[in-house]
């Protein structure tokens, strides 16, 4: 499974020296993205339909059958979807909060910073699978297992990106703030925290897809409730239509979450000039 990029590369466009464009210019781009998404989806469905005519249904069912399975799952398995969503929300929220705090400490505390940095770097080297297996030994409660697995995997992304964010803060802003002789808390409140918001957004956007894959995987290993466990059940009962239906729903979930994040980002980071690179 591919992991999202860990290093923050998002700098404000003005610092990149890229030409800033007026906001409405981005709209046609978004429409183009949507059209492309529709075209690719239709092509995939057509490919499935064609394949289903040449192979037995347990290898590739027709998209119509999968569509029926989706409707079935949406009425009968709503409980499992909400459990998965709750797990995802809790783990992402917690990792964000603690990861941001750790990242801030890494960037601002000379004494603690290096130790936390080492800890996070070591954590990033541990494969997700190791955590999943270890969690089965350490925790009896499936909720604790899943929460633990997701947190140890997601937290370093936040910590490292926020740390990068603090380090990339222009020194001249700090000097400007210092000229008013602020307290440490004021420096955080007026400078550091607003500056890292964009890094938190960037991290969330890049980990959300990964987090969905991880929560499904963790549920498959550690739980009897949730989308992952339902997929495992579908596989063991040879219901490939259910497996594909769940896959479809997860893809849609990822798209919806990404769109919501983009919407929130556009609202919160409206101060940014959108860059247009030729």
């Amino acid at each position, binding site marked *: 499974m591919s992991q999202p990029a860990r290093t923050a590369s998002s700098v404000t466009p003005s610092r990149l020296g890229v030409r800033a464009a007026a906001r409405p210019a981005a709209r046609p781009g978004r429409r183009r993205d949507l059209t492309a998404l529709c075209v690719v989806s239709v092509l995939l469905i057509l490919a499935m339909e064609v394949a289903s005519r040449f192979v037995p249904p347990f290898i590739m069912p027709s998209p119509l059958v999968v569509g029926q399975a989706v409707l079935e799952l949406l009425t009968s398995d709503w409980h499992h979807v909400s459990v998965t969503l709750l797990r995802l929300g809790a783990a992402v929220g917690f990792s964000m909060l603690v990861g941001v705090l750790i990242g801030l400490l890494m960037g601002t505390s000379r004494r603690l910073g290096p130790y936390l940095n080492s800890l996070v770097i070591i954590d990033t080297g541990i494969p997700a699978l190791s955590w999943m297996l270890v969690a089965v030994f350490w925790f009896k409660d499936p909720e604790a297992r899943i929460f633990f697995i997701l947190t140890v995997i997601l937290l370093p992304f936040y910590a490292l990106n926020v740390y990068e964010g603090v380090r990339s803060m222009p020194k*001249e802003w700090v000097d*400007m*703030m210092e000229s008013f*002789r602020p307290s440490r808390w004021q420096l955080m409140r007026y400078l550091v925290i607003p500056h890292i918001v964009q890094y938190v957004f960037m991290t969330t956007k890049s980990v959300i897809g990964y987090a969905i894959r991880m929560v499904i995987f963790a549920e498959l290993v550690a739980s009897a409730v949730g989308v992952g466990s339902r997929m495992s059940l579908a596989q063991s009962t040879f219901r490939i239509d259910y497996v594909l239906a769940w896959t479809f729903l997860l893809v849609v979930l990822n798209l919806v979450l990404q769109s919501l994040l983009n919407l929130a980002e556009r609202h919160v980071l409206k101060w940014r000039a959108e860059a247009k690179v030729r």
Partner: protein
Amino acid sequence: MNPTANSTANATTTAQGDAFIEMRDVSKHFGDFLAVDQLSMTVRRGEIVALLGRTGAGKSTVMSLSMGTIAPDQGTVQVGGVDPSREFDALRGKMAVAFQTDRLLPWRTAVENAELGLLILNRSKAEAREAALHWLARVKLEGAEHKYVHELSGGMRQRVSLARALAVDPELIFLDEVFSQLDHVTSQVLRRDFSRIVREVGKTCVFVTHRIEDALDIADRIYVLDAPARVCLALSVSEQTRRDPRALADLHDQIAQAIGGDTESADHDPNYSENQDLS
């Protein structure tokens, strides 16, 4: 009259007045590099003093020493009767800086940037907003109060930065090459607006620059710094001198000679003497 000879005498006399910044034999090293060498200078309350010198002459180090963000290796620095680096918090709210680059926070609008200093000084939100709006109006930014930084031009940004410094109602304002990154016309307009405002409110102002005409246009007194920073020439510029193009040209030549021949300012400002006539 020879304005320069007079001025040097004046500089010494004023030093004995109500001194706000007093530096005595100040030296500062950065590793092996000597940035400030036995510098002595005085800034009196209510006057505008220019620190003029070439790039690398240690002007900004002198400013940092006065602000207390660095401490001298030798000598004494007193600002408003206290040592600014040792008693850092004693000068809270008493000084403000406008920098070469605007240093505005991009997630704050013009007015939110202008009120930043006041919020740090724990003024109420309403009071800070009122003062920020007042100062934005005084630097001629009505109508742009709620624009984000990327929506403002370079000159407008620098005006917001000046409003941010003035809004805290400081006793001392540092201007660190504030006009040097702007185009000639913008810089000139801003310079005049700003010196008018500073004179109206009667603030003490230390103005760091490498442009001779900027210094002659604004300052009551000019300290010309050599590298490493020490005063190689001190002179006063009276309003009368400012209106006399010949006296100004004399001062200009004298300063240019003190800082070593050719000056960037002369290249930048071909209409120099005409500009002086206008003032």
